[in-house]
């Protein structure tokens, strides 16, 4: 066992500040009506974190209900195919409900219960966060309504059906492009109306403070397990860690323990893959970090795809979980600080990576996760044939069968 990936004594990385700012990003930009609810949430969250009972209950559910820890699997045939020494896959796709989203939904629904709220709402893009929240709500006996854009309802029909089966209401959102950003807006509007009896379970590291910090906390189990598993496997050196970035929750969950525990010198290259859609030179993409400029949307300040007048633009990606015009504030701060590198991956590259993992390893990844996998050939070119790389496979591809079939995969 090498000591390179052991925790450092003291890490300089400490965000956010008391007002929820990560450098200049983050904060609380919402109507006054919900400010007291956010303050109440921040307090309840602090108390819960320091309560061993809360931690035990969440830990128990993650183990016996979700199936954690998820494996860190050495994908040898994939590594050979992309020309890397070693590729480890963090198998978040094996979680109950099929993605990392359940880590956060269970945490937030437990918080909701502690706060005495009997009703939760959520937004969803790919439907994974919606299904995860509907699942947690069913488990805990909470009433649940999930806001989903009409375009996503079309793209992710199976997940819509699942949410209804689980007893949740799915509220179609027709405004805008009918995708994730519109669902967030609709959920926030609804929350302003029902703030007294309703808990908003946000699905990614976005939204006003303290949400980005809460979601990071509940998703950090991904990176913590990964660090521990690398140690057990005796892997002392990792060159790069990759995750896809929509709002940024699976990525921050993977990256944060590396940022917090490791000094800059021994930290692997952290790479976030956002959606380049049809290409970042077109207006059909979701690459907020690569192509956006700082602005305020959905209650926080961060890189944002916007027009010259400051209107958020519609994002596009083949994946319903990545077509968001903004990105979590912590990622903006990490980009500016040079602590994480963000690159954009096109629909076509993601589909190719999807097919490659499926054929080489017999693992069908989510189309979102395929964006992270698509970074492997690029990193092979850069890091060489001996490099050791970890990829977070944030979810499984069952929900994407119609999309990949439409795109022509597997029909030859």
């Amino acid at each position: 066992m090498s000591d390179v990936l052991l925790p450092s004594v003291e890490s300089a990385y400490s965000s956010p500040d008391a007002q929820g700012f990560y450098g200049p990003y983050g904060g609380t930009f919402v109507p006054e009506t919900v400010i007291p609810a956010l303050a109440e949430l921040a307090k309840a969250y602090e108390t819960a974190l320091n309560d061993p009972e809360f931690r035990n209950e969440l830990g128990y559910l993650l183990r016996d209900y979700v199936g954690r820890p998820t494996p860190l699997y050495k994908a040898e045939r994939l590594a050979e195919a992309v020309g890397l020494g070693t590729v480890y896959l963090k198998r978040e796709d094996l979680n109950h409900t099929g993605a990392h989203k359940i880590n956060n939904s269970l945490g937030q629904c437990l918080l909701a219960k502690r706060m005495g709220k009997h009703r939760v709402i959520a937004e969803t893009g790919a439907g994974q966060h919606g299904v995860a929240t509907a699942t947690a709500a069913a488990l805990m006996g909470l009433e649940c309504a999930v806001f989903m854009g009409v375009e996503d309802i079309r793209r992710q029909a199976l997940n819509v059906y699942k949410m209804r089966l689980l007893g949740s209401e799915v509220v179609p959102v027709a405004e805008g492009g009918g995708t994730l950003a519109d669902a967030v807006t609709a959920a926030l509007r609804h929350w302003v109306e029902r703030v007294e009896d309703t808990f908003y379970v946000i699905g990614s590291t976005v939204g006003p403070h303290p949400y980005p910090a809460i979601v990071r906390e509940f998703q950090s189990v991904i990176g913590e397990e990964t660090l521990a598993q690398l140690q057990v496997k005796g892997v002392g050196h990792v060159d790069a860690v990759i995750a896809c970035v929509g709002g940024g929750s699976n990525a921050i969950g993977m990256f944060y323990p590396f940022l917090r525990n490791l000094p800059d010198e021994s930290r692997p290259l952290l790479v976030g893959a956002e959606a380049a859609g049809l290409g970042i030179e077109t207006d059909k993409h979701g690459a907020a970090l690569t192509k956006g400029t700082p602005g305020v949307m959905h209650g926080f300040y961060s890189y944002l795809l916007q027009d010259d007048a400051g209107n958020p633009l519609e994002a596009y990606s083949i994946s319903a979980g990545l077509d968001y015009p903004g990105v979590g504030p912590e990622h903006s701060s990490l980009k500016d600080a040079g602590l994480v590198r963000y690159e954009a991956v096109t629909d076509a590259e993601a589909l190719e990576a999807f097919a490659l993992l499926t054929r080489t390893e017999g693992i069908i990844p989510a189309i979102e996760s395929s964006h992270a996998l698509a970074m492997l050939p690029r990193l092979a070119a850069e890091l060489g044939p001996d490099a050791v790389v970890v990829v977070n496979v944030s979810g499984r591809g069952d929900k994407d069968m119609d999309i990949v079939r439409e795109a022509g995969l597997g029909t030859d």
Partner: protein
Amino acid sequence: MAPTEIPSRLEVAFRKGRPALVAYLMGGYPDRAGSLAALRAVALAGADVIELGVPYADPLADGPVIQHAAKVARARDGSFGLAETLDLAAEAATIEDMPPLVVMTYLNPMMRMGFPVVAGRAAEAGIAGFIVPDLPPDNPMAAQWMREARSRGIDTVFLAAPTSTPERLALVGERSAGFVYVVSSLGVTGERAELPAELTALVGRVRASTSLPVAVGFGVSTPQQVSNVAGIADGIIVGSALVKRQDDPVALGDFVRSLASAVQRR
């Protein structure tokens, strides 16, 4: 209170010895000329203050009527936004007996243009105040904006909500200038059949936290509601009910006159 000695035009408008009628209109709706005609009609019909909304792609605090108007305005005339609204306001200010204008905009268009530019152009256009629903008074960005606005005699109006704690109300009351905007009920803008029974108590709590005039908005839409609110507040803000009629200046003017007389009758 502003450290400068420029008298607040808004405070004056709210202290005429009777409650003030604040009319909300959407800039650029149904188109630029139509919104100018609406401004004229509403001024003539006796509005004491006009709130001019900036069309925005993600109006988080607005209900269906205002969302729709924003969408139409953005689809016309090369996407109407903050710059166009300020320009419209400048032209409206030349109309005879135009009451003080308050711009209601989400924060991001202001950040995109830059606070000094926004404040400079707004001052040139004769804007009396700004309402920014997604900018809470204790956000560091609020202090930055107010530095620019105050020195140019522009008031920043913050919102008090039914959920606000006494500490929040104190903050809103202390940082606001011109008046305090009381959100009547939970939820987004839009007509309500009934205003909550607790409104009187809420207005009382807000009054106790500020020396500024106190105006009530969100959901106020009929002459009867205006008359009721006039019994407890210094101002009544009517939005969706006007925007709904904004494409017909004659009907709009008649309706505002009915609201104005509901205020007078108190």
